[in-house]
């Protein structure tokens, strides 16, 4: 008997016999043999706990950690108060699987209700769902929602969403017969005139991101007018919720759907995930959104209580009619964001946004003043991230920074040939003046 497989071969034989099978192989006869992997999996032999701990530690040591981070491009090094983990790691939350049965998990549904409420206030919308996997998939869900709601099969997405998000939208939505049209950028922001030309009465909506992939705050007022130039077409805004402490909420610009990545709300970067998507709409669309919504009700004794609501179409009797069959969410990460928002409050979120923006602008001015970096998109308003063109090789600069324990900016040339020797630098409230000055000193010296 193996330590982690608590059945002996005699027991296995007994189990097989009771269902009329001769061997374990017999259990897989329904899978055509040409589809089955034959041979041994390349995972090596089993290890003892001691060996395994050592092995994992060795792997973990290969990661660079404790770096001073100036890289963003979708994941940001914001401060995460330690109390978040102390609450989120309580076993009632941490070990629960699909903890949505309201009669046994009021704590979780209450937290979801709070999350929905706070996200709705932040985005300026009326309803937020219980969360999505990440910002990219939330955007793909919003595209499907717009197409379903307007019964149209084309969507215009701004190149400012960034390549990864556009790829996810394509992967998720093209199979549904949706045609994705990418609107070009002009000086790093969505080209409004060109976008106008792409819209039409067969287009379900316009998707933009603000602040966009290059950090630029888009002209949402003008883009809303383009999106709504046809009365059915929808305006979908992907946003960084941490920017909404100081920027006007997309809902106030007339957005129909607001989505985004909420990793910036106190969730550690964790080498790329798990992250947290959100999707907010106005009441009119509440029955069409993917996922779950928690509503407030009363129990048999008249006490305030919370329940999952409006899920009939998604998961139960009409699942074949649903826009999306997503039936899971990021419960634990959602809880972390909820704790973060409740700790920060309105004032705290404003403080984080203000500091991030001021420090980013300080870094920008210092770097441009060296004369070795030019603004890639001069004069464009940006929040906490900005693109520069370097005289020296960006890759070399980053290698040099790494020697001093600094993770430099995102090398734009990797994914955007047209932006050649560009670097995208993100500055959060965590960065100190000394750290920024050190970054500038090293970058200038190369």
């Amino acid at each position, binding site marked *: 008997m193996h330590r982690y497989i608590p059945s002996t071969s005699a027991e296995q034989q007994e189990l097989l016999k009771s269902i009329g099978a001769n061997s374990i192989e017999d259990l897989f006869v329904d899978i055509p043999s040409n589809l089955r992997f034959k041979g041994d999996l390349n995972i090596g032999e089993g290890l003892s706990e001691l060996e395994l701990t050592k092995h994992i530690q060795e792997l973990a040591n290969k990661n660079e950690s404790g770096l001073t981070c100036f890289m963003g491009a979708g994941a940001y090094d914001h401060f995460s108060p330690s109390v978040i983990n102390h609450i989120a790691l309580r076993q009632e939350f941490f070990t629960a699987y699909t903890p949505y049965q309201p009669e046994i998990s009021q704590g979780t549904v209450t937290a979801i209700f709070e999350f929905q409420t706070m996200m709705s206030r932040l985005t300026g919308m009326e309803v937020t769902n219980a969360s999505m996997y990440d910002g990219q998939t939330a955007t793909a869900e919003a595209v499907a929602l717009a197409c379903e709601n307007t019964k149209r099969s084309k969507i215009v997405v701004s190149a400012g969403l960034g390549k990864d998000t556009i790829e996810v939208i394509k992967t998720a939505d093209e199979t549904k017969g949706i045609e994705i049209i990418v609107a070009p950028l002009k000086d790093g922001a969505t080209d409004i005139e060109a976008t106008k030309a792409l819209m039409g009465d067969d287009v379900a909506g316009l998707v933009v991101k603000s602040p966009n992939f290059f950090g630029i705050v888009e002209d949402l007022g003008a883009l809303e007018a383009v999106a709504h130039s046809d009365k059915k077409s929808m305006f979908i805004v992907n946003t960084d919720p941490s920017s909404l402490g100081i920027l006007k909420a997309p809902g106030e610009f007339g957005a129909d759907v607001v989505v985004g990545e909420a990793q910036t709300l106190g969730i550690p970067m964790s080498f790329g995930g798990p992250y947290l998507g959100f999707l907010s709409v106005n009441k009119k669309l509440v*029955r069409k959104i993917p996922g779950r919504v928690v509503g407030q009700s009363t129990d048999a004794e008249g006490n305030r209580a919370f329940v999952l609501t409006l899920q*009939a*179409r998604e998961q139960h*009797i*009409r699942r074949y*009619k649903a826009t999306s069959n997503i039936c899971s969410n990021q419960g634990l990460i959602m809880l972390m964001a909820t704790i973060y928002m409740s700790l920060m409050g309105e004032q705290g979120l404003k403080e984080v946004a203000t500091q991030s923006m001021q420090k980013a602008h300080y870094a920008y001015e210092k770097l441009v003043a060296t004369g070795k970096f030019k603004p890639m998109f001069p004069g464009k308003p940006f929040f906490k991230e900005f693109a520069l063109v370097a005289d020296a090789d960006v890759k070399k600069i980053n290698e040099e920074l790494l020697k001093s324990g600094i993770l430099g900016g995102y090398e734009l040339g990797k994914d955007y040939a047209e932006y050649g020797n560009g670097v995208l630098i993100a500055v959060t409230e965590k960065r100190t003046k000394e750290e920024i000055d050190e970054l500038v000193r090293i970058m200038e010296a190369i």
Partner: protein
Amino acid sequence: MSKIVEGLFYSEDHDWVKVEGDVAIVGISDHAQHQLGEIVYVELPEVDDELSAGDTYGVIESVKAASDSHSPVSGKVVAINEELEDNPGAINEDPYANWVIKVELSDKAELDNLMDSKQYEGFCAE
């Protein structure tokens, strides 16, 4: 006993149809609203949508179930009862006064496929 109004056409899906000139006014029968129970949501089509008889044009959701609404006739939707979006329960109160859609008939002969009030009474009794 559910109320059945004379002079209307009825479908097997328990819709009623009242013809005024070229326009068919479509609603849900008293029998259907009793079966559904408390109606909490009505999804309506858009004006100008083209429907063929049998097409799904919307959804009626009650506390018990969510069911598709099928058009009993073919034609273009010329009006929708937007009041139902805010007050879907109006159908429970008076299913014959609170119509759902108005369709400009493209083929009046289709009305022959529907039942009259007597036939519908028998149909409901089965």
